[in-house]
């Protein structure tokens, strides 16, 4: 065999039957690719072998073989390609070209992409469908969350408005504060009174006072929280009484979770103090 001379018929027959060595086969393959005459000869040898194969004693495969194939075919269903003009009639379709310009089919060749990724389109479509479904469900869930949060916001707004109204009423300097007590048998002068409402867990304190005596200039009343654990008193805000002797301390900054043993009020210099100055003029526990 030689790459320059034509391949002998004997070798073409052996080549067609895959009976040559790897090297010999490679040599013939290369030659045939570039030699139309040998390509023609090889095609004829293949045709001869096809005829010879048909001399075999014919046996039908089992019915299960057909069933097996069709099940496999069904499992590997194809995507349906976009309809395109194709002619598969008797006058067209498959032709062979042994002169090198053979035509497989009149139908246009599929692109590399469509051959290489035949399921890509469907995969993308399926992915988009799944993504769209997910987005729909996410949107639905977010809509529900939004509605719930909107309701909560309305409730909070209402609560805040109510709280603000309470705050405004308690701190309004024009508000009239009246404390009702058991009517005394004989009139007595009013005494200073204070009412502290304290929530240790939250550090929330509201203090309302009445009948407070006016202070000297540069002096201020200071409220104290006396811890139950024996720590030093904690300043809980300063206040000046109004013209009617009323005063309040609303939500002063206090640490949380401090159990209160008692509350007290002292008179301090303007600006307040970090330690109470005796005497304690008011106290309650």
């Amino acid at each position, binding site marked *: 065999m030689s790459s320059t001379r034509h391949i002998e018929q004997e070798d073409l027959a052996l080549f067609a039957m*895959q009976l040559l060595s790897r090297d010999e086969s490679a040599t013939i393959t290369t030659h045939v690719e570039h030699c139309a005459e040998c390509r023609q000869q090889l095609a004829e040898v293949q045709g001869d072998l*096809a005829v010879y194969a048909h001399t075999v004693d014919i046996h039908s495969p089992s019915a299960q073989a057909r069933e097996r194939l069709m099940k496999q075919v069904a499992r590997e269903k194809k995507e349906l390609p976009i309809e395109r003009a194709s002619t598969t009639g008797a006058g067209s379709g498959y032709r062979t070209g042994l002169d090198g310009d*053979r035509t497989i089919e009149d139908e246009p060749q599929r692109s590399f992409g469509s051959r290489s990724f035949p399921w890509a389109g469907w995969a993308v479509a399926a992915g988009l469908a799944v993504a769209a479904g997910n987005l729909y469900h996410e949107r639905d869930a977010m809509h529900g969350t939004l509605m719930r949060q909107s309701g909560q916001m309305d409730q909070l707004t209402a609560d805040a408005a109510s709280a603000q109204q309470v705050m405004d009423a308690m701190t309004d300097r024009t508000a009239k504060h009246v404390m009702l007590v058991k009517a005394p048998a004989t009139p007595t002068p009013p005494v200073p009174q204070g009412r502290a409402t304290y929530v240790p867990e939250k550090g929330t304190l509201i203090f309302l006072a009445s009948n407070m005596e006016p202070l000297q200039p540069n002096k201020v009343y200071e409220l104290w929280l006396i811890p139950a654990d024996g720590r030093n008193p904690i300043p809980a805000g300063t206040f000046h009484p109004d013209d009617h002797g009323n005063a309040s301390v609303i939500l002063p900054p206090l640490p949380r979770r401090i159990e209160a043993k008692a509350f007290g009020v002292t008179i301090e210099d303007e600006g307040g103090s970090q330690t109470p100055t005796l005497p304690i003029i008011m106290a309650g526990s």
Partner: protein
Amino acid sequence: MYREMGLANAPPQSSQDDAALLALVKRGNEHAMASLFDRYSAVVYSVALRVLRDPASAEDVLQEVFMQIWRSPDGFIATRGSLGGWLAVVSRNRSIDALRRKKPTEQVDEMVLAAPYNLANESERNSMMEKARGVIDKLPVEQRKTLEMAFYDGLTHSEIAEMTGEPLGTVKTRIRSALTTLRKAFQS
């Protein structure tokens, strides 16, 4: 004879040619696939059975070959009406590969066949089979046996020469002569 070959009980053949069926297969038409199977499964299976001598292995080759059609019908560079011939040769090659326990050779699957007859037509196919058998039966025994050993047993010319004690050149000549006789019978 056709009754012996099982063709008498074969389902009615479609009038569609192989190219039309392949085009339908390409579009995912399972009925077209079934039609091709009904048309050519007997030949494909029989060739595989002759090589492998085992029905289960032959059915494996049958399945493999037809699934190849289903998966890549474009891979069939077929002369009009020669799909049957192509399938018969591919069945033989796949069976030899199975016999040798080697990977399928794509090289031969890409072969081009020169075939002037229309194997899609049942009567033409049967006529061709009968004629080919007649030609082979009349071959000298040495030629017939040598071709049989090469084609169905997958023996190389060296192996045949060793087994028969004939020179390598003689083995090659016998194979070529047998095929040439077969070709001339169909050209006449």
